[in-house]
């Protein structure tokens, strides 16, 4: 049985979510502020399969909670559920480490579908770690495991892992999504706007520089010298270009 933590200070919404999640067979815990969520997840190390996180919480807000979780190495899938729907809020949500973002008011079925998708991905990941091969198990994804290698680095898109000779980095869904997009367009210049539209699904006029923070983070993962990138190159005034480099296996 999957466990979900609902972090929501609006009691009516929290109870409504509990009723529906329990009806779907989840076990549900509710906390009403960010500090309580952090203490459950980091101090008590409670194992949850997913978190539904509000942003406008009393005390520490949802952005802070998500980024503190990620900083502490807690990679439980986080779905942000919030009334704030401006593109910059959505981006900030993903930046702080959320895996998905849904605006209030939401459709119940959409919320359930997204939550299920997050939990399913985590289950694949866990089975893989436990040594069950990715292929041949019951809920195998349609595609074989996707792995991309370049310059001594391996990106495992199924397990959301980036392995370098010195370390293994866990990627959030959005970081992986952006990397995948850049890799798919290897050697070509992609604009910031295109990235926002294709990776985040944002069509409105957004401050496209928000993307730069993501790039900085990705560079830390994949570049030997993040200040002198060799793979993730800035194309002045336009966007970015990914180059796998001379050592990339085709």
């Amino acid at each position, binding site marked *: 049985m999957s466990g979900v933590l609902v972090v929501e200070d*609006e009691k*009516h*919404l929290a*109870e*409504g*979510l509990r*009723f*529906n999640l329990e*009806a779907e067979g989840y076990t549900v815990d509710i906390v009403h502020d960010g500090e309580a969520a952090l203490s459950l997840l980091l101090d008590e190390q409670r194992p949850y399969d997913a978190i539904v996180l509000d942003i*406008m919480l*009393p*005390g520490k807000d949802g952005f802070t909670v998500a980024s503190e979780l990620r900083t502490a190495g807690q990679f439980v899938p986080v779905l942000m559920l919030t*009334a*704030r729907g401006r593109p*910059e809020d959505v981006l*900030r949500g993903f930046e702080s480490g959320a895996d998905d973002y849904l*605006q*209030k*008011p*939401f*459709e*119940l*079925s959409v919320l359930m579908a997204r939550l299920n998708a997050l939990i399913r991905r985590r289950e694949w990941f866990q089975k893989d770690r436990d040594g069950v091969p990715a292929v041949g198990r019951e809920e195998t994804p349609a595609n074989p495991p996707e792995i991309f290698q370049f310059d001594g680095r391996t990106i495992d898109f199924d397990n959301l892992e980036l392995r370098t000779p010195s370390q293994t980095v866990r990627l959030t869904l959005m970081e992986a999504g952006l990397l995948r997009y850049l890799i798919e367009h290897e050697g070509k210049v992609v604009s910031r706007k295109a990235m926002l539209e294709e990776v985040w699904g944002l069509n409105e006029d957004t401050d496209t520089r928000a993307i730069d923070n993501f790039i900085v983070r990705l560079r830390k993962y994949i570049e030997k010298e993040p200040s002198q990138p060799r793979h993730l190159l800035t194309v002045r005034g336009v966007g970015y270009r990914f180059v796998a480099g001379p050592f990339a296996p085709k």
Partner: protein
Amino acid sequence: MAVSGRRKSVIFFITLGSFLVALAIALNVGWILLNWRQVALLVLGIIFFMVIIVGVVLNTTFLIREIRRNEQHDAFINAVTHELKTPLASIRLYLETLKTRNPSEAQRENFYDIMLADSDRLLHTVEQVLRAGHAGHSRRRLNPTIIDIGEMVRECLDLTRIRYNLGPETLHYGESMDGERARVAGDADELRAAVSNLLDNANKYSDKEVNVSVEVSTLDEKRVAVRIADRGIGIPSAQLRRIFKRFYRAPGLFMSRVKGTGLGLFIVRSVVEKHGGRVFAESAGLGQGSTFTIQLPRA
């Protein structure tokens, strides 16, 4: 992200302004020292420099005020978005739940109650925003009737008790009249909104237990006062006047835990002033509770 960016720009403008003022003063003094013989030119120059200094000071003040206003406006938009969307999301969630699940009769009843409470909350927010919208138009005609102010305040108390599920010992009511009942000529709806807003605040900003006393008293032949005193979080003296400004919310740890649009007290002030009265806040400081007094002319 946006907030820290703005804070940086505030710091930038303050630094720029102070720097320019300092530079102008230094130039002015230096110039006087060098050219004290050319008196006529000196006087002219001093005047010009003064104009420049005053201009820069005014400009910087204006910029800072504008930035602050923008910040408040942003916070207001966020708060209203939240206050509108949250009850809607809740109502929608429960409607979908009723449609797709099969709740028991008791659960169903509970869901109906929740949805009713949420629609009340929604209505309250919409009314606040609309009221604040025409609060700015001081010429909007009142709909005056003669109101027994004591009676009206008691009604508001009952409503607040129901809305927040408060026990009888939390809100106290007292009257001290000079023999005659205090009556006011005014718009009953608006005055009720003003008193309710003050009661809402007294409840919202009470940290632990709610203990509010309300007193209606006749000050003299011409004026009547409604005093609402709570034992809540209190208000620092620097904020006592500012809190009545539109969109203004006092900063602080506890404040960030209480949701609000920054419209409530603005509405109170404009309603009371429209009725020819005045409203003010008193507080001994943080943690000391606060008292709001409305004074209105008697009919």
